[in-house]
């Protein structure tokens, strides 16, 4: 299976993503944002980081870059597009995902492990993961997900809220919310569930001896779906 990780000036989780994808068997290519066409891919990843120094708004400049039009075409034809952290911010700025990621409510950069609850199984990212709760890592200043009430209703009605911040028992309450995101939202899908944006970093949790292993379940599950 082929994947592509798109690199913008200021991306800094691109190599971690490359290592993770390769570890689980993807043939991954790193694609510089200005290098023309997208290679043929089964999965496109927009990695974390600080594209364009977070100028204007996080992800806004990358969201208008040349390669993004190809990503939009790929996504609209049903291809899997994953945006992690800054990648999630870019996906909202392109309009592929609704809403926006605002500054954390406590005005602090948050860097810690969190628990997230898998809310939906009708998708290729989380369907056969045999855990309800995953422990992943977050590191962001703008992860406070916000959208209009109408948009939120649509997300809920279509089961597009992919993952929510919770405690280790799965309670999605105020105390388990690190950044003020509405409804503890940590990640969302588009309507067709081929596009996933999430703040937590699965690529940082692929080795039980270093950090944790729950990210491995995520990558293995995507790969298994693509192989079918």
């Amino acid at each position: 299976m082929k994947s592509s990780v798109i690199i913008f000036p200021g991306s800094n989780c691109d190599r971690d993503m490359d290592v993770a994808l390769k570890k689980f068997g993807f043939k991954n290519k790193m694609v510089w944002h200005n290098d023309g066409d997208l290679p043929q891919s089964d999965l496109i990843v927009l990695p974390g980081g600080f594209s364009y120094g977070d100028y204007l708004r996080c992800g806004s400049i990358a969201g208008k870059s040349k390669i993004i039009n190809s990503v939009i075409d790929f996504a609209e034809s049903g291809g899997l597009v994953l945006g992690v952290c800054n990648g999630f911010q870019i996906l909202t700025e392109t309009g592929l995902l609704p809403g926006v990621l605002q500054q954390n409510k406590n005005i602090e950069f948050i860097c810690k492990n969190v628990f997230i609850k898998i809310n939906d199984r009708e998708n290729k990212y989380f369907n056969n993961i045999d855990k309800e709760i995953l422990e992943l890592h977050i590191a962001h200043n703008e992860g406070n997900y916000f959208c209009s009430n109408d948009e939120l209703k649509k997300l809920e009605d279509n089961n597009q809220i992919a993952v929510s911040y919770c405690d280790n028992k799965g309670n999605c309450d105020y105390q388990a919310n690190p950044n003020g995101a509405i409804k503890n939202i940590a990640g969302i899908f588009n309507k067709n569930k081929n596009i996933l944006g999430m703040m937590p970093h699965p690529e940082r949790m692929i080795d039980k001896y270093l950090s944790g292993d729950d990210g491995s379940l995520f990558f293995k599950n995507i790969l298994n779906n693509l192989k079918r």
Partner: protein
Amino acid sequence: MKIKVVVTLKNGVLDPQGKAIQQTLNNMGFPEVESVRQGKYFDLEINEKDEVKAKSRAEEMCKKLLANLVIEDFKIL
């Protein structure tokens, strides 16, 4: 010609930075400050002599890039 654009958060959208600035002003001896909303200001130098045309182009720029209409409003001055 020069076009000035101000981008502000919509009413009801949380502004943690504005809140922190307000609290600091209160602590510094300005208790009368009841609310602060932080925004952005852009000076655009546009190669266009017709003001109506320039402003209409600037509006397009605001909608497409300068403001995120999910949470922000813009004004062309």
